């Protein structure tokens, strides 16, 4: 409320929509033809509980792909399968042309798959900056001895990655909480930091598990803008799970709908919206 008062109006200004108000921007046609990830015939069960059965779909390079479905439809399990946390009993996953069998999550990370979690999975004892820096760990190479000295190559490396992390901080507009321990941050900001950590890994495929869960309208708008910007600026392919239908339909290029672990629809938002099976799943007898 003090000095910021003078400049607060800047922030308060309506952030006009880029396409809004007759600005002569033509939204470019979005065409995706290169398959980045292909899921085919994946089935997954725990004991007797079937989480996914015979699910197949693909994710193309550069698109925003939404996975939707009622609670318990197997959406999170799907993400867990993609980044190697669960190993499906049947089916194959083809990522960047390589058919994948068993793979540990850290391998998936090394292959360029990053993700965020439904229940924030930040390192609560570390600062925002350190959390984002952990996203760079994969890219850091200097060994123990250099690290011990924190000198020469190790320090240079640290600085290079710090610079990268700072660009992400700038991108996500979280400068003010750079050195705050994340455990103390409000929920919406934690979500943003988690996105930052995933981005720090420079992923080719970014998996977002309910990035807007529990947010208010304003926070949701911010997050949507960041997701679009990430896709735009870095060309990152994004697969996301989200409950807020209006946001899903706005954001995504294609939507796959799961229900009871099966795929019931797949297509553009308009196609999915018109699909009777989807309407049934959402409006029919709810299951949880």
């Amino acid at each position, binding site marked *: 409320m003090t000095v910021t008062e003078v400049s607060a109006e800047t922030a308060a200004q309506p952030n006009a929509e880029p396409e809004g108000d007759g600005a002569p921007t033509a939204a470019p046609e979005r065409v995706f033809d290169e398959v980045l990830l292909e899921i085919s015939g994946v089935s997954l069960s725990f004991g007797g509980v079937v989480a996914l059965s015979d699910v197949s779909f693909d994710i193309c390079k550069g698109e925003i792909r939404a996975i939707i479905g009622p609670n318990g439809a197997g959406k999170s399990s799907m993400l867990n399968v993609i980044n190697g946390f669960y190993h499906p009993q049947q089916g194959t996953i083809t990522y960047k042309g390589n058919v994948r069998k068993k793979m540990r999550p850290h391998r998936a990370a090394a292959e360029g798959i990053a993700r965020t*979690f439904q229940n924030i999975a930040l390192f609560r004892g570390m600062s925002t900056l350190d959390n984002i820096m952990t996203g760079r760990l994969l890219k850091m190479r200097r060994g123990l001895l250099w690290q011990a000295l924190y000198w020469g190559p190790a320090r240079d490396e640290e600085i290079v990655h710090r610079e990268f992390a700072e660009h992400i901080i700038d991108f996500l507009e979280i400068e003010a909480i750079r050195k705050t321990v994340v455990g103390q941050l409000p929920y919406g900001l934690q979500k943003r930091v988690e996105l930052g950590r995933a981005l720090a890994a420079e992923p080719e495929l970014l998996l977002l598990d309910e990035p807007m869960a529990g947010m208010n309208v304003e926070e949701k708008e911010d997050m949507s803008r960041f997701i679009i910007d990430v896709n735009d600026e870095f060309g990152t392919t994004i697969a996301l799970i989200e409950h807020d239908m209006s946001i899903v339909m706005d954001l995504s290029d294609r939507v796959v709908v799961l229900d009871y672990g099966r795929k019931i629809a797949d297509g553009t938002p308009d196609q999915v919206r018109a699909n009777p099976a989807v309407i049934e799943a959402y409006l029919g007898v709810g299951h949880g």
Partner: protein
Amino acid sequence: MEFISFLNLVFVAPFVDMVSFPIFFAEVVIAGVLTGIMYSLVALGFVLIFKASGVFNFAQGAMVLFAALTLVGLMELGVPVLAALLGAVAVMTVLAFAVERFMLRHLINQDDIILFMATIGLTFLIQGFGEMVWGSNVKALDIGIPSESFEVGGILLNEFDLFAAGSGAVLVAVLAVFFHYTRIGRALRAVADDHQAAMAVGIPLKTIWVTVWSVAGFVGLVAGIMWGAKSGVQFSLSLIALKALPVLILGGFTSVPGAIVGGLIIGVGEKIAEIYWGPLVGGAIENWFAYMLALVFLLFRPQGLFGERIIERV
């Protein structure tokens, strides 16, 4: 050549010995079972507290010592055995109240490791207090348990050991009844699953803690009597706690049957190892064998004997 003889010593000779002298082997096993029961008694105290409050109570060993010291001390003052027993139970209950009032209450919602450290502090406190009040010299404990030896089928048995085994079994049975048929017992089980649920049952956490620490104190007293009657009441009693730990990892921190079966496995395993393999390496392997056994076991079954398989979720 030497290598072959080494293989022989390690992998053949001990088994040949076992088969050649079955009676001796049986005696070893029985001795192991009996020690195992003692371990189980101590481990039981750990499990009770861990199950109900998530506290890894390192002071259980000290509680065993303190209970036995109190009993012996009262008897030395001329108190009759039964009254001394009741007195010891009362003292352990007071201790439970004090622990809740002065320690646990202030550490709610702290990390597990903090609570764990606090119980180590408690260990020192109880030990120092017990020895200050009752003195630190070794005391004989005789509450009239017979210790005549007799033979069954060529196997030498000791009445004392049988008595110990019997009381162990009775104690477990009593606890089982307590947990299944009393309101507070059911609440304790509920607490182990979910603190909120326990609150909903309507029993305050405070009561639960005091009860469970009292029961653990009582179990400690029984263990203390057994060990004390066998080898005298002394400082080293509190070290028995360390022996109970591998039992715990083997049996699982939250499983009463686990504590018993784990105790038996450790007791028997360590006796056999000591007798048949110990001489090869200079003996005294009892100190660490139990840990190694538990460790190797854990590598194959991380959740312990009776723990549930953990499905990791994200």
